[in-house]
């Protein structure tokens, strides 16, 4: 990991409220290990909002990295104002990756909201490696989608309002997508309610799953102890340490579905 002053190459709106930024960050690109890892952006020098903002790496191409982000509050708004040529202070690559490589399983990649980036990244890595993968993307409405519903190519969209792809949450879409999938393994990233639903679905259908979870981060590098997620069956005796809680920034953000308590 390192702190690097990246140069913005491109920053554009790609769907309703969803932006994509490409930047040059050779040091971080070089150390990058795979989909799931993230960077911490120091959005501005002002201390009005003191903390860096975590953003998953959506793609790495040579010395360039890409993020895909949703405008959520003040700092994501400020990120949209960055123009090509401007500099951005970023720290990365951080965290672990989705684990795959077992040809027996077909990755079913499930993303929604702010969780699109690592899922699209994973999809790209699968495609590049010649691995068949299923992509399921959820959104509230069609305008938030920037790829097409192509069930024939194993790309499934879901929208709450039915304006694109399958109507409903990602769960019915996953169910449909599984019809032609031999041995699926779900890899998911998205808002808490989505992750919770995926977790329950995977458990009910005994499908292995990995979840990339979100957490409020102070440092991103294990020195503040702020970013914990609760582990399932954590040993809660007084003598336990990091058995009940796990640091998302270094142990995660990707966990086996049965390992963590969501929400």
């Amino acid at each position, binding site marked *: 990991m390192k702190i690097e002053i990246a140069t913005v190459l491109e920053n554009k709106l790609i769907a309703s409220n969803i932006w994509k930024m490409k930047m040059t960050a050779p040091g971080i690109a070089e150390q990058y290990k795979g989909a799931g890892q993230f960077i911490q952006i120091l959005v501005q020098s002002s201390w009005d909002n003191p903390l860096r903002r975590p953003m998953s790496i959506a793609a790495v191409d040579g010395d360039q990295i890409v993020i895909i982000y949703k405008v959520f509050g003040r700092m994501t708004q400020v990120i949209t104002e960055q123009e090509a040529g401007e500099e951005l202070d970023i*720290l990365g690559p951080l965290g672990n990756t989705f684990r795959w490589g077992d040809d027996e399983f077909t990755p079913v990649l499930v993303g929604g909201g702010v969780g699109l980036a690592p899922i699209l990244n994973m999809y790209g890595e699968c495609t590049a490696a010649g691995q068949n993968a299923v992509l399921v993307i959820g959104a509230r409405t069609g305008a938030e989608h920037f790829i097409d519903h192509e069930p024939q190519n194993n790309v499934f969209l879901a929208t709450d309002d039915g304006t694109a792809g399958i109507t409903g949450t990602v769960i019915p879409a996953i169910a449909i997508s599984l019809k032609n999938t031999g041995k699926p393994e779900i890899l998911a990233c998205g808002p808490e309610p989505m992750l919770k639903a995926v977790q329950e679905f995977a458990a009910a259908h005994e499908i292995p799953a990995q979840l990339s979870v979100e957490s409020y981060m*102070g440092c991103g590098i294990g020195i503040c102890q702020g970013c*914990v997620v609760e582990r399932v069956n954590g040993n*809660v005796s007084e003598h336990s340490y990091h058995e009940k809680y796990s640091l998302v920034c270094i142990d995660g953000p990707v966990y086996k579905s049965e390992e963590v308590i969501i929400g």
Partner: protein
Amino acid sequence: MADLGTKIGIVDFENPIFVASGTYGYGTEVSELADINDLGAIVTKSITRYPREGNPPPRIVETPSGMLNSIGLANIGVEAYIETMIPLYEELKTPIIMNIAGSTEAEYCEILEMTESASSNIAGYEINISCPNVKAGGMEFGVDCDLTEQLTSRLRKLTERLLIMKLSPNVTDIAAIGIAAERGGADALSAINTLVGMSIDTTNKESNIHFGFGGLSGPAIKPVGLACVHKVYQAVDIPLIGIGGITCANDVLEYVLAGAAAVQVGTANYRDPDVGNSIIIELDTLLDKNNMGSILNLIGKVQLGS
């Protein structure tokens, strides 16, 4: 090169820029990002008698020019600290100051004794009697002169290493607590720990910190830290370590002028884990530019109107 050297009790430090407890882990985590060997000292995360998981999330939230935390003293416990951390410190040039927290006098003493009986190169102890977040954090000591004096004098008997008592700003009279710690035999005092604060997510009415209250840190509290240091400086004769909201060399000089012989950088590490080293370089330049000489000449030299 200005003379950045400073002295706290019996220990000489190459420079006055330390990193604060709880904001630099156990000291070695950031070695990939910062040259930790150039820091004046590293104060490690509060250690308790037994490992602690800490509080449920959410544990942190940002606030204007600061942040709240309620980590709940998550730590590996003194046994693991002795086994796994102390050996790592043998390879460090930087002095390590071990921060200790407890819920009873006996517990503080036991932790210190256990550490003393192990072989180690740690430079001294900072005693956390000011963690606002958990009962085990010693706050009941930090708000009471008698308890502070008694705890300090018991710990004093157990070690000849540097003994620093870390004071809380959440009191009516911080100078009185400082005097009590001095009377108990502390070599130095550090101030301040975090201020009790709160933050609420109005969209769902939930507290942004799980149990409600958290500790406020960052530039927002710098004026409070400076006032506390100056008040204690006026009241005691032992050296002080200034803490609270430091992000640059100018902040360091403010603390030195208010009365600090050294400082600790906390929250700023989260934005830039190498900020300590940047401050050392900046401080060197600043002292030279203003022909200020050694920082030792500047301690407590703030001029007040009459």
